[in-house]
């Protein structure tokens, strides 16, 4: 019985037109992401990992080719519809956290809920609960500048989880962290997967990539290999 395909990319090309030169960031990529999967995207710097992730998470429109979200082609949708899809089905974790510095941890986590039209008191309750879950119960009202890198990334994970999205998309989530914090964040992501979230993660560390069920290897904007990771660990289910 085939699992549901949430994201499907067909022959995706992304070209950045820099005037004199054209940068071919993606050169015809086909990709499927199934519900409940954990996929890592690996490749050297500049190979197009971030671009692919952005296209798959409908943050970026491809130059050609098509991306389907839950079977619906995104080329038919306007920017507002894409924003709604992102807000509802995708939780973003960025390498540089991308928290809003003027706002407290709680306010940052509440923000995507505002976009979903959740009433204020519900937003507060939910934000507090998730911050508690990621181990930041005592940092709820702190500003990002008052938090360590690891704590900031945990706020970002909490924000990604706020709307309870199907997919968590993470672009080198541990890239800016020390190894201890990095491991904690990685553990958090693994736990999310165990609890049923679909995970799409970019990394350039082989060891981290091995946490996924599948590793997609990129080079010069093309998928050059797809490895299925053999489970050494005991599966919970």
């Amino acid at each position, binding site marked *: 019985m085939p699992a549901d395909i949430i994201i499907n990319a067909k022959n995706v090309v992304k070209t950045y037109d820099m005037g004199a030169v054209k940068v071919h960031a993606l050169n015809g990529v086909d990709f499927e992401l199934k519900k409940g999967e954990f996929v890592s995207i690996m490749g050297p710097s500049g190979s197009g990992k971030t671009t692919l992730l952005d296209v798959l998470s409908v*943050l*970026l429109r491809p130059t050609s080719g098509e991306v389907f979200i839950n079977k619906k082609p995104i080329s038919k949708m306007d920017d*507002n519809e894409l*924003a709604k899809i992102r807000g509802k089905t995708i939780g973003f974790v*960025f390498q540089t956290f*991308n928290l809003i510095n003027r706002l407290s941890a709680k306010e940052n986590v509440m923000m995507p809920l505002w976009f979903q039209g959740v009433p204020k008191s519900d937003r507060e309750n939910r934000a507090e609960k998730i911050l508690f879950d990621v181990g930041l119960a005592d940092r709820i009202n702190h500003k990002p500048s008052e938090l360590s890198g690891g704590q900031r990334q945990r706020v970002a994970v909490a924000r990604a989880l706020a709307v309870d999205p199907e997919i968590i998309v993470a672009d080198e989530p541990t890239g800016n962290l020390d190894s201890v914090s990095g491991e904690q964040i990685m553990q958090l992501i693994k736990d999310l997967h165990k609890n049923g979230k679909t995970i799409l993660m970019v990394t350039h560390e082989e060891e981290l990539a091995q946490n996924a069920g599948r590793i997609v290897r990129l080079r010069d904007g093309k998928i050059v290999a797809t490895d299925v990771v053999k489970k050494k660990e005991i599966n919970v289910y």
Partner: protein
Amino acid sequence: MDLELFSRAFENLRRQKLRSSLTLLGIVIGIASVVALISIGDGFNKSVEREFEKLGSNTLIILPGSGLATSFFAELDEDDVDTVKSVKGVENATPIYVSSQIVSFKEEKQAVLILGIDTRDHALLEDLGMLDLNEGRLLTSSDNFSVLVGSRFAEDVFEEELYLKQNIVFEGDSLRIVGITKAAGQSFGAMFDNAIVMNYKALEDITGEDLTPFRIFVKAVNKEEVQEVKDRISRALERAHGREDFQIMTASQIQESALSILGLIQLVLVFIAAISLVVGGIGILNTMLMAVMERTDEIGVMKAIGATNTLVLQLFLTEAGLIGLVGGFIGYSLGFIVALVGGVVASSSGVDLIISFEPMLLLGSLGFAFFVGMISGFLPARRASLMDPVEALREE
């Protein structure tokens, strides 16, 4: 309306208070001018209306001189009063004489205005709201050394306040105060407020001057006929003088000329308001452009995590509107204070301005200021809403 949008926008503004507050200046001045303009205009209209309620719309005023050249030489005379009285449709007419004189009270000397009236026409003068007794009695034709003083005159002119039955010395004669009139607070009444009033014959006797009427006040039988009465008086006087060296004003004419002066002031204020609002609008535009640039990464994040273009547009429009709103509120307060001060100044110079709080004006100013803010913020807000999230996030 999304309340969250407002609280979010308000929060965002609070964090850049200095720049916003400088931006406010244009809007503040613009709205303040508009509010002052409307309040003063309103107050003026009300007081003109009130004045004519007293004077009555069937009142005509005849003054000497028809233009700049003749006004210095032209004179009305006593016979003119009789001529006017005999015109068809005229109920009554009375002359007012004016003389500027030095009088003394105790050791103090002051230059004052003495008004001469025809005591036979008390009823008409009272009717016109010029002789409203506060205390004492009115004059009779035999009162040669008895006078009335205005209440303002009694209080202000000499060091010591004047009371009934005291004497003022004028050209060696003692003038006894037999009555004090009430404050009238409108133009002609105000003239009486600040003067000594006496029998014009007695005034001529004491000064030895041959006075001519400064004004002749005429009351028409009915107000529908004022224009016809005016034409008839004009013809009668022209026949008597051999030329048109006089002017006849009607209540509606006076109102018009008062309003035309006001119109000029209003024009200037409208000009100031328009310029300030444009400057204020540009200020808001600039502030919002800077805010959008500074918050590029924030806009990128918001859009990445699900904010639609529409929401981003609304958020920045609301912020711009709020800047306008705050400016509008300060501007309203300032404008109202200016109007109040203007009212006090005007009153002290005899023009009554009735400045009152109008809730609609407050609401209107706030709404208008919010609107100006939104218009000015439209381009920056549009720019923010159309930002590509990936590009926005890339910028550091």
